């Protein structure tokens, strides 16, 4: 794996390597009515009673995969949606590369799931046609039934046994979008009814017989280790059973979460740490190092034309520095995992975005082979990339092994969750634009300095695709500029890094789209017209290995501007700003924000988003993702993690503020009807919303905010 793109290719293609027909034998699973269940592939089974059991190969973290993905199978298979049951895929022979991230859940499974459903449908039709002695062509399917000539009708359940004996078609006929009956219509979240009665089970809700609970006392400085401690006070807490050393610190094992927390706190009062080499790490010094790195060597992510001479020859050069801080994920469900470890095998219950990697790493940590570890994927109380990490699942396995006996649930409290996050890294950005005598943009340079998330994910290794990964959103800028130089200068940071909702694209598009706004204003052009000019009349263009359709980007930009009333007269203190991006070269999105600044306070009133993500599976789900992405973006204007003395300063929601309902802007979503293959929507709204808001601040106040979070003095 050499880049995040490869990471997505590998993990995203959950089961893509699974050839349909692999399970021709239709192996029954425990509790199934043996051979009478039709299981043509790993994604679906039809039981004799007609109920369809569909496998969800992605982790549900609010983005709606447990609704949208089964819907794809149900569409091609013509199932009765109200009679569908779901099972969550587990790492194992059927699924070797489970992974959820990068807004790729739909795009990477689309063809596989459609083919799985369509193949099963053809087999059921063939079984019915055989039974009735009619050609398959005279049969059709509807809501779980095959319908034949002369009013013949057979339920899928009664055909299951016969269908299971037929060959699996290799290239079944797929529906055309015009034939879709489920896709494209609003479908409610399947887990909604359980959520509203408190019966949706997240990782933290795991309850196993004999389960104990543990809290881990970790050194607040990354890499630090316990030097000396007195376990007696912790052991004196009622309910505390043991204090055991683990690689991440000291685990306090108890019969309840509260006792574990109390024991952990008692232990903390007695402990001294070897802080290790990172006790002096702080944000201020890091920024100095990042600024120095902007002048040092860097890895090119994209270089076309000769930027240095182009800038030297430019009639005018504009230059600016942008800064984005460290961020925490703060999923509402803090990190946790439950593990049972025996000498010959283990079982984990965990909300994870990386089931197979979690399985492999936990196995390695306790001396087992991956296949000896059964990993159950629970619902995720938020993921946002944090649960792509495997630190918490590996740690739970280590605690359970050290504690011995039955299952142990390791619970992180909010301070653990923030302080020991895998942080989105801080970055500094230096951008330069070279303008010719007529205000034409002839050269563009964007250098990014900061920590590399990919290296952290690869446990310290530098991959060849590192610059491309860290400069995502910067190197794939869609504008027609003759000379481009996009580069990444890695700065070593000691804290673990991880992908955040919309990953490196957030800071990179923030800097890119705000700076482009600066350049537009510097040339006296309207920011919308300036962008449209730079997109030009081109359609398909090649960027690296991928194709990008600029016509689709122009269309969403124009649509968002039109719906937001771009150019209209606004109340005093109000401003409109816009930004656009082709997210991972797949999802085309533009946002226009309307804000006001009054008495030094920023208020985001409205965000209008226009999106083209190809075929829309569930419009209601899509709108929810845009609303959520906007909320995430508005939060990012105020939150940050800073480090002092090797420690994250922020510890809870009082110092790491997250957007609340009263500040939520009105969100409008406009979509482009499309028959293109579907892409994703979980992340794309975030990186365009932030610069749209900041560009609106400039429009309203003339103040150019180049640094997040916004400080009160910035708008005073």
């Amino acid at each position: 794996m050499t880049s995040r793109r490869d990471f997505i290719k590998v993990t995203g293609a959950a089961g893509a390597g699974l050839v349909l027909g692999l399970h021709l034998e239709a192996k029954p699973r425990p509790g199934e009515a043996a051979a009478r269940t039709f299981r043509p592939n790993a994604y679906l089974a039809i039981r004799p009673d007609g109920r369809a059991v569909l496998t969800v190969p992605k982790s549900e973290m609010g983005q709606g995969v447990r609704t949208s993905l089964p819907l794809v199978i149900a569409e091609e298979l013509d199932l009765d949606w109200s009679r569908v049951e779901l099972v969550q895929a587990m790492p194992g022979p059927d699924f070797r590369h489970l992974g959820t991230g990068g807004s790729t859940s739909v795009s990477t499974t689309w063809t596989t799931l459609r083919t799985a459903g369509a193949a099963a449908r053809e087999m059921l039709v063939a079984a019915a046609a055989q039974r009735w002695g009619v050609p398959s062509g005279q049969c059709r399917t509807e809501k779980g039934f095959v319908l034949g000539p002369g009013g013949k009708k057979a339920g899928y359940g009664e055909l299951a046994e016969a269908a299971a004996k037929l060959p699996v078609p290799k290239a079944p006929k797929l529906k055309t979008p015009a034939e879709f009956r489920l896709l494209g219509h609003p479908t409610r979240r399947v887990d909604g009814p359980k959520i509203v009665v408190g019966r949706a089970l997240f990782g933290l809700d795991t309850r196993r017989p004999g389960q104990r609970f543990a809290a881990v006392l970790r050194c607040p400085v990354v890499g630090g280790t316990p030097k000396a401690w007195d376990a007696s006070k912790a052991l004196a807490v009622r309910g505390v059973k043991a204090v055991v050393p683990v690689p991440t610190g000291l685990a306090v094992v108890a019969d309840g979460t509260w006792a574990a927390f109390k024991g952990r706190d008692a232990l903390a009062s007695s402990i001294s740490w070897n802080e290790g080499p990172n006790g002096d790490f702080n944000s201020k010094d890091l920024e100095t190092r990042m600024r120095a790195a902007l002048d040092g060597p860097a890895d090119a992510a994209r270089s076309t034309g000769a930027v240095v001479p182009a800038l030297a020859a430019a009639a005018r050069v504009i230059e600016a520095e942008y800064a984005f801080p460290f961020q925490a994920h703060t999923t509402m469900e803090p990190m946790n995992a439950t593990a049972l470890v025996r000498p010959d095998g283990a079982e984990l219950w965990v909300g994870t975005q990386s089931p197979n990697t979690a399985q492999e790493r936990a196995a390695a940590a306790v001396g087992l082979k991956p296949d000896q570890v059964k990993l159950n994927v629970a619902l995720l109380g938020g993921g946002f990339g944090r649960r792509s990490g495997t630190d918490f699942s590996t740690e739970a396995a280590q605690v359970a092994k050290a504690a011995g006996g039955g299952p142990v649930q390791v619970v992180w409290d909010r301070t653990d969750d923030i302080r020991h996050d895998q942080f989105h890294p801080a970055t500094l950005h230096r951008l330069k634009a070279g303008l010719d005598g007529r205000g034409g943009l002839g050269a563009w340079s964007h250098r990014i300095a900061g920590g590399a998330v990919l290296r952290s994910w690869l446990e310290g290794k530098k991959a060849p695709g590192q610059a491309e990964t860290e400069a995502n959103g910067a190197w794939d800028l869609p504008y027609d500029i003759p000379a481009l130089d996009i580069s990444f200068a890695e700065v070593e940071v000691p804290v673990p890094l991880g992908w955040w909702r919309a990953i490196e694209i957030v800071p990179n598009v923030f800097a890119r789209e705000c700076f482009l706004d600066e350049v537009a204003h510097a040339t006296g052009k309207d920011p919308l017209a300036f962008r449209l000019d730079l997109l030009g009349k081109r359609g398909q263009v090649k960027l690296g290995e991928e194709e990008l359709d600029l016509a689709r980007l122009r269309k969403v930009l124009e649509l968002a501007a039109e719906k937001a009333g771009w150019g209209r007269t606004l109340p005093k203190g109000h401003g409109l700003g816009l930004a656009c991006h082709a997210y991972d070269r797949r999802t085309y999105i533009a946002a226009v924000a309307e804000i006001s600044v009054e008495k030094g306070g920023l208020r985001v009133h409205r965000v209008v988003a226009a999106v083209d993500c190809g075929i829309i599976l569930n419009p209601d789900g899509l709108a929810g993702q845009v609303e959520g992405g906007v909320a995430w973006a508005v939060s990012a204007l105020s939150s940050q993690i800073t480090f002092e003395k090797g420690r994250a300063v922020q510890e809870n929601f009082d110092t790491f503020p997250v957007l609340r309902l009263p500040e939520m802007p009105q969100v409008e979503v406009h979509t482009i009807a499309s028959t293109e293959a579907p892409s994703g929507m979980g992340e794309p709204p975030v990186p365009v919303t932030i610069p749209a808001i900041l560009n609106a601040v400039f429009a309203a106040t003339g103040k150019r905010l180049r640094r997040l979070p916004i400080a009160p003095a910035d708008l005073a």
Partner: protein
Amino acid sequence: MPAFQITVNGRRRSVDVDADTPLLWVLRDTLGLTGTKFGCGQGICGSCTVHQDGKAVRSCQVPVKEATGASIVTIEGLSKDGSHPVQRAWIEEDVAQCGYCQPGMLMSASALLAAHPHPTDGQIDDVIGDHICRCGSYPRIRKAIHRAAKGGAE
């Protein structure tokens, strides 16, 4: 150490825990009612909200000794079958994303409606503004509360 007598969802329960144990952990770990969620442990995020004698409280901030004698209602007891107006409205508006914070939201929303059957946006801001949803389901929460107030109509 004496056991504490609390009434949860109409059932009297005797729990043998330390007096300072937050109600949250009594519900989740002692009584197995995991619908009430742990979010921040400091009463800032609202995920652990339950009703204590009809009022929305942060169960992570209520020591069990202070809940003795009180009637506690959790998300599991809000209705027998998910039919409380807020639960129905939450489904109608498809509010939840990950869903983790929603039990707390529902408990606060139902307490708000009990006190103010037709809450204003300002009243919704005041009550739900003390909660956090990281997924950003806020617009739908507001719509769902208004819908519930109108007896389920949009």
